[in-house]
């Protein structure tokens, strides 16, 4: 009975909560994006649905559900249906390993409950490999639409992903050398033991990771696959209604994933500021119930805001500039960062 509760019921409840929280945050994000855009352009943004436009996501969601679902005549029906799902599923299952808090969470009726769904010893690799699958959904969707603009968007997307994934992988290696583990929980614990967040040891690694992360999620200034000013809507031009909203969900969910990864790897995950300093005030902060969740969420919100902020302040890269930045700047810099970190760790530890 205990086995059933610990290994089936509790994970199931956790998955249910995480799934719904992520979906809810995505809904709020669509509103946040429009509000932030409005503030940056000195407008008000959506104001009509509910007080201060707060119910706008609900109205949008309803509209998308009720819209006619169109499959273009020349489209490959199977692939056209499958593609948004291939994009969406990886974006959500990555959350299985994100540690929202420490392993020794709290106890309910004698069952110990941790703040994450599971802790894999290949956590980082799992996140990288699963999130690299989402791109296939974009490429197949662009191809299956059987139309010019989606195909161009899909081609750009493929080239962009392949270029930036390499630099993304390299930018994380510095952290892995310092922490000595691929498990996300162990990486945060190593930061606690070290006494400071890894961003102070790996500033270059962090900037590279976030830049490549933005490129991986197809957000401005790297949003060439959708580039509304040149490609109409890029790979999802032919998608409408619910299928379109699946792509939308996937994009916002992967934004949250990249933010969570940045927080976990570089900004101390669930740790409060000054994790090794003990004083009355700071220890009191730790005593607040669900404090780890608060710190984690607060940090993630900062990164998501940065995402929205970038979109409305920076112009899009041109295609050749994008390739040049990826291969000639980010990748060599990431490799140099790995070598310098490895040498320094060897010298200082040995």
């Amino acid at each position: 009975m205990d086995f059933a509760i610990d290994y089936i019921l509790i994970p199931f409840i956790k998955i249910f909560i995480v799934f719904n929280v992520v979906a809810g945050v995505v809904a709020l994000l669509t509103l946040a994006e429009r509000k932030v855009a409005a503030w940056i352009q000195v407008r008000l943004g959506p104001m009509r649905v509910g007080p201060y436009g707060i119910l706008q996501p609900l109205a949008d969601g309803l509209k998308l559900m009720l819209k006619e679902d169109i499959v273009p005549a020349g489209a490959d029906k199977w692939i056209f249906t499958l593609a948004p799902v291939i994009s969406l599923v990886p974006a959500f299952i990555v959350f299985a390993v994100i540690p929202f808090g420490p392993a020794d969470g709290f106890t309910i009726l004698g069952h110990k409950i941790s703040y994450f769904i599971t802790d894999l010893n290949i956590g980082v690799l799992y996140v990288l490999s699963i999130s690299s699958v989402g791109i296939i959904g974009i490429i197949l969707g662009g191809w299956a639409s059987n139309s010019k603009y989606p195909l161009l968007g899909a081609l750009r997307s493929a080239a962009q992903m392949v270029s930036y994934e390499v630099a993304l992988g390299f930018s994380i290696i510095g952290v892995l050398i310092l922490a000595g583990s691929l498990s996300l929980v162990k990486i945060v614990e190593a930061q606690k033991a070290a006494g400071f967040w890894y961003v102070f040891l790996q500033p270059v690694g962090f900037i590279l990771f976030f830049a490549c992360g933005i490129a991986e999620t197809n957000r401005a200034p790297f949003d060439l696959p959708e580039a509304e000013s040149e490609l109409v809507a890029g790979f999802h031009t032919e998608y409408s209604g619910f299928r379109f909203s699946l792509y939308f969900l996937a994009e916002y969910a992967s934004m949250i994933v990249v933010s969570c990864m940045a927080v976990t790897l570089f900004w101390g995950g669930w740790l409060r500021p000054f994790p090794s300093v003990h004083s009355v005030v700071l220890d009191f902060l730790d005593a607040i119930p669900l404090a780890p969740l608060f710190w984690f969420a607060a940090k993630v919100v900062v990164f998501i805001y940065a995402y929205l902020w970038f979109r409305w302040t920076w112009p899009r890269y041109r295609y050749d500039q994008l390739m040049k930045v990826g291969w000639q700047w980010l990748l060599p810099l990431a490799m140099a960062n790995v070598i310098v970190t490895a040498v320094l760790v060897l010298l200082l530890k040995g």
Partner: protein
Amino acid sequence: MLELILFYTFGTIAVVSAILVITRHNVVHSAAFLGATLFAVAGIFLTLQAEFLAGVQVIVYVGGILVLFVFVIMLIAVERSVHERQYNRQRTIALITSAILIVEIAYGLYRGRDSLILPSIVTPPAAAAAVGNSEQVGTALYTSYLLPFEIASILLLVAIVGAVVLAKKRTPAEE
């Protein structure tokens, strides 16, 4: 019992999708089934407690190679290739070569028949569980298999240099 069920599930998916990869007329459908095969193989790695290999399988084959396959497929006219003949009707040669292949495989299996009988309960080595999979793979690669590992990396380097040379635009002075 659970491992056996998982193994047969993943095995069936892998084999069926692999057959579909070569029988579909549309190359994009083939690519999609190739993805399913690769995922099923990663699943089999997981049942063998080789989670590092499973992760690498997905990131390299699905995230890298399959993406490049699809990328290239999009540049060719799929509509025309759908109507083209899929097999070139060389039954005799195909039969001979596959007969040779079957004999080879059968001989290999016959020679290695002793290793086919597995101990009734397969337990992962205690060391692997304690140290972690990725550490073990790393240690093996950089100690016992250092030379093959380095040879493989030089081979890949040569391939990269070759690709760059082929793709590079020639300046007038070189021609």
